[in-house]
């Protein structure tokens, strides 16, 4: 993948709306365009980013020592390796600049690896995971802030491949977006986002459960509920739409012997 700083990158737009400075002019311009029609974007982006940190703390607390994080973005404060300093963590991202930056921030830490990889071709992610985890496949998988960028087929295929790779007892955390899209306003919003950044795929719970099978859903609730900040998401953040961002905890069930 070649780098072109004149073209916005979704990861860097995300960083910008989160208040970061890991972005270029093109990203900031694209972000401003999105914010004009989708002013609540920073709220939803924050909930996602905070959810990552909550999950990181939870996994560190429950002793998950092998963490595979997909579409990691900037590994800034509160990411998996800082929350769980003794765990082996493999981060991945599609953007080469993010990966280069991450290498600089992480430095020489033998427990942490950050690779550039495309989720549509996860074979090399599994290779890297096998290498870093020394063959251990009972893992905790971070899949946060990604599902809504993947179409049904890609998502189902990736879920299946992750399931096949991971050993029973593995867990996964993901977030997904729901929006009632049968109104003109909703369609317009999605269209605008697509033009300035990326296509978004909205799903309800039943669709998500079906696409993530055979992963078993342990718990689904809005991100704001996971974080205990329901009161922070105002009616205005939904912009008159029937919309919500959910967090899901999934497990790879132990096979009864």
């Amino acid at each position, binding site marked *: 993948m*070649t*780098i072109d*700083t004149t073209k916005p990158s979704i990861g860097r737009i995300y*960083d910008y709306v*989160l*208040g*970061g*400075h*890991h*972005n*270029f002019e093109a990203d900031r311009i694209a972000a401003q365009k999105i914010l004009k029609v989708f002013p609540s974007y*920073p*709220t939803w*982006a*924050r909930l996602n*980013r*905070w959810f990552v*940190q*909550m999950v990181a*703390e939870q996994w560190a607390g429950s002793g998950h020592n092998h963490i595979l994080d997909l579409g990691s973005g900037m590994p*800034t*404060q*509160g990411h998996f390796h800082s929350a769980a300093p003794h765990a082996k963590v493999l981060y991945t991202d599609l953007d*080469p*600049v*993010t*990966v*280069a*930056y991450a*290498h*600089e*921030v992480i430095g020489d830490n033998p427990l942490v690896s950050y690779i550039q990889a495309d989720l549509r071709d996860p074979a090399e992610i599994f290779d890297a995971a096998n290498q870093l985890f020394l063959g251990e496949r009972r893992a905790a998988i971070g899949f946060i802030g990604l599902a809504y960028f993947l179409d049904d087929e890609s998502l189902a295929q990736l879920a299946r491949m992750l399931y096949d790779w991971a050993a029973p007892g593995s867990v996964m955390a993901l977030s997904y977006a729901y929006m009632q899209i049968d109104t003109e306003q909703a369609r317009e919003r999605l269209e605008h986002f697509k033009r300035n950044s990326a296509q978004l795929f909205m799903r309800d719970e039943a669709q998500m459960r079906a696409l993530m099978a055979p992963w078993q859903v342990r718990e689904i609730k809005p991100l704001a509920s996971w*974080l*205990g*900040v329901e009161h*922070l998401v105002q009616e205005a953040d939904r912009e008159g739409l029937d919309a919500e961002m959910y967090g899901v905890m999934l497990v790879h069930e132990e096979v009864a012997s």
Partner: protein
Amino acid sequence: MNDDLLALKPALEQQLTAALTRKSMSNRGSFPPFRIPEAAKSLVAGLLDNNAAASVEAARSLGRTFGQQGLGLASLLDAQAAAIEIVASRFDGAAQPIGIVSTYFTAVIDSLVTTEQAESENQRVQMERAYRSTVEEQREQQDHLRSTIRELSTPIIPVYAGILVLPLVGSIDSRRATEVTERLLEAIAEQQAEIVIIDITGVSLIDTSTANHLLMTTRAANLLGSRVVLVGIGAEIAQTIVHLGVELNGLITLADLQAGIAYALERLGLAIQPLQEQRRNATSNWR
């Protein structure tokens, strides 16, 4: 005075937590709401420290930490307002306690803003560096790939002592033609080649500049004492050459590689003969 403030500890912690929570969305993505109670406790602890000098230092250090963690300025200003309100109502608006609170918060805010600025500058510099190193790495990869392709696309084969064959395949632009010339001249000098056969059977297209390059290569080879034979000119390329009006003077052209090799050997006083004939000659010599 500070002892009086101390009595307000629970109320301060509670109100500051509430204020910081209200403004959670002003925090950066790196500061999750579940860190707020802890942040409020540290703020109150610093404020209630009995030693004024230590309190200022604690304030600066807290500001730095908050700045690095991504606590928003709006959060902190709200916390300050909440703290002043509590203290003002407890001390009936007396100036001194309010002054303590405001001095303390000014130090925290000042330090947070400075850290924020340094942090944003730092992130920008790191990002630029990451960008440059990525571009550099990609350029290295491309250079490596290009040199591999170059080596693959310009094989110079010593078929016999003094004879080199250079089969060219694909399209040849000026850049590649220059590379071919360079590599060929190196090989001529190295192998002391007398004859070079350039086989263009696999070349699909040729233009004026490519044809001129071939001619220049020929001349340069001549200067090194080599003769160049061009073989494998297809009908299309022959037409192009004629059409372009390129003069191929000084170039020996032959139909194919076989003819080229036969010619080269002949120039060296050699020939490829059937084995039988060789044997017959040898036998007749014995007689």
